[in-house]
Each structure stands twice: as C-alpha cells, then as structure tokens.
C-alpha cells in the first residue's frame, strides 16, 4: 500500500453529506420510477416482498437487478447461481472503473469508512460527486451523502412497486428511462478541456458503439471506458497542468462546487 503523506487527506463533514444528498435530488424521479418498475417486475416474477427488498438493499444496482430478474427462480442450483452472479459481474463491471476514478480522492481516508462508502456507490452518486470534485470540491462527505441518500429511496420505491405494480404506467412516454444517459451527457460538459483532451472520449464512444453491437448486456460501458482510458495513457499530452481535475488547490466551501475559470 503506497503511502503518500504529501497529499493532504480529504475532509469529511456532515455539511458535505447534506450537500451530496441535495445534489442527488434531480435524480429522484428517475430512480423512483426505476425502483417501482423493479418492484413490480420482481413481484411478477414471483419474488416475495422480503426477497425483492433484500435484493434492492444488498445488491443495490438497478440495471443488474433487472437483468438478474430474468434469471430469478424459486429453486436454485450451483449453475443457475453462477449464471446470475456472472451476469451481475458484467453489468456492474463499470463500477470497477468508477471506483478507479475515485481512488486518488480516497487516499488517506479511514478504511472502514471507505468500505462502508463503497457499498452505496451508484452511477448517480458517482457522477454527482465527480462533478463536485471537478469544481474543486474535496469533501468526501458529498460522495458518501449522495450514495446514502439514494439507498432508502431505492428501497421505498422497490417496496411501492411490489405492492402496487407500476405506479407510472408509461415511464417511456415521459423520457424517464433516459434520465441517466441525459444526466451523464450534461455532466460531460464541465469536464470539457478542449478537443485535444477530448480525444480519448471519441475513442471511448467508438469502442462502446462497436461493443454494443458485438457484446451482450452492458459490457459496452466497460469496453468504451477502458478504450478511452488506454487512449488517454497513450496519446501523449504535454503534461497538462490541470489543477481542478487533479489536485484541487482551494478548500472550497461546501457548495455546488462551481468550476474555476477554464484553463
């Protein structure tokens, strides 16, 4: 375990947790609809309310749960269990990449708190926290609070779905199935550092589109992410000095983390 005493430990405050929770608010409608849809589908598959709630509480990954539901059964065997675990691994592999982006921020934080924090890491909390850090924020409470805020919401909406079936009968008509891609696109804008720095993104997009045609499930996210990552490593940038993205200077007061002037 490399020690990096030169790097200051990121703070963790209650105010940060609350900010993180607040930053997730725009995601709530999409998550509720997804949770309700999952609960309804789980009930339809013959899962008990307790089983559906336990899955939402422990697995806590919407896409993986939905895909896993296709393989859900009353009576399990070793092979069916391995199948559902493999599917979960493929759908959630993108989180490995997300965790990798968070690691420099987590250096020096207590291990138990990281272990707890990993449990509530989701697409939503990751993108909200990345955006906050991009704006120069360092408070790890934001990452934690965003994850913790979404967990009870996910449980409650799963429960509602189990009990009532689909509350929102046509989520697609309202575009709610695309909340996450749309939010991700919006979050990409503040990351823009000019065309040169965006070359890996083009590689990522092309690789993901190719993988989407060739591979099942959500593997395209991992393929695209890794391709962009490799492109970033290989395309030689003249050691850019990008304090905002790398080593935030200011202990910015907790807030939306507005980005300092570009470049």
């Amino acid at each position, binding site marked *: 375990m490399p020690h990096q005493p030169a790097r200051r430990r990121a703070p963790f405050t209650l105010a940060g947790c609350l900010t993180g929770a607040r930053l997730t608010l725009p995601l709530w409608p999409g998550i509720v609809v997804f949770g309700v849809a999952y609960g309804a589908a789980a009930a339809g598959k013959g899962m008990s309310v307790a089983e559906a709630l336990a899955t939402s509480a*422990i697995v806590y990954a919407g896409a993986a749960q939905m895909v896993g539901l296709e393989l859900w059964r009353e009576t399990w065997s070793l092979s069916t269990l391995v199948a559902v675990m493999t599917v979960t691994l493929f759908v959630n592999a993108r989180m490995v990449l997300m965790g990798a982006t968070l690691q420099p921020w987590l250096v020096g934080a207590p291990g138990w708190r990281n272990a707890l924090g990993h449990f509530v890491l989701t697409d939503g909390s990751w993108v909200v926290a990345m955006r906050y850090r991009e704006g120069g924020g360092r408070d790890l409470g934001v990452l934690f609070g965003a994850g913790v805020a979404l967990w009870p919401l996910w449980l409650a909406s799963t429960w509602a779905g189990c009990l009532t079936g689909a509350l929102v009968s046509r989520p697609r008509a309202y575009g709610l199935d*695309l909340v996450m891609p*749309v939010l991700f696109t919006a979050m990409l804008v503040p990351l823009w550092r000019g065309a040169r720095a965006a070359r*890996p993104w083009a590689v990522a997009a092309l690789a*993901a589109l190719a993988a989407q045609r060739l591979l099942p499930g959500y593997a395209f996210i991992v393929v695209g992410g890794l391709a962009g990552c490799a492109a*970033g490593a290989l395309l030689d*940038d003249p050691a850019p000095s990008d304090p905002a993205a790398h080593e935030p200077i200011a202990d910015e007061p907790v807030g939306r983390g507005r980005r300092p002037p570009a470049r």
Partner: protein
Amino acid sequence: MTAALDALFAGPFGPALAILLVGSVSYACRAGGVVLMARVRPTPRVERALRALPGSIIVATAVPSGLAAGAPGLAGLAVAALVMAALRVEVVALAAGVAAVAAGRALGY
C-alpha cells in the same frame, strides 16, 4: 461437492443465499476499482489514463444508450449538452433533455 452445493442452493435458504452472493459480487465491483488503483504506482502515464477515464465512462454510457433510443434519445442528449453549456445548471439541463425525449416520442419519432 457440486451435488452438495446444489442441494444447499435448492433448499429453503436458496433464495437468501442467492441474494447474498449476488450482493457480494455487486460489492466487489464497487470496491474493486479503488482497491486495484491503490496498488498501481501513479506514473504520469497512469495519471493521464485516470484523467481520461471519467469522461470516457460517461461517453461510453450515454452515447450508446442515447443512440439505442433513436432520434428522441439523440435529441435528449444534444439538448442536455447545449443547455448545460449555456447555463451550467444540472437540474435544468436534465429536465430539458428528458423533456426533449418525451416531446420526440409524443411526436411519434
């Protein structure tokens, strides 16, 4: 061995074990990247790779998902990006993007 495991999973604790095991896979994915990167020496090359990663994950998630949703999906992504570039307020960009998707579908695209 296999038969014993099959019997265990087929028993009354099968569903509970399945949920726990799938949950542990989920957790391993969440913790895996952090644990892995803690063991990688941060050379300039690794730092460049890591710096390219967030945008790459975002692009790799959003572009195929948007394209799969056809014209309304693409319109939603484009509107979200434009509104975000103009206003820099996530909530507004998200609402505008989702509204564009809904509008596109209502128009029958």
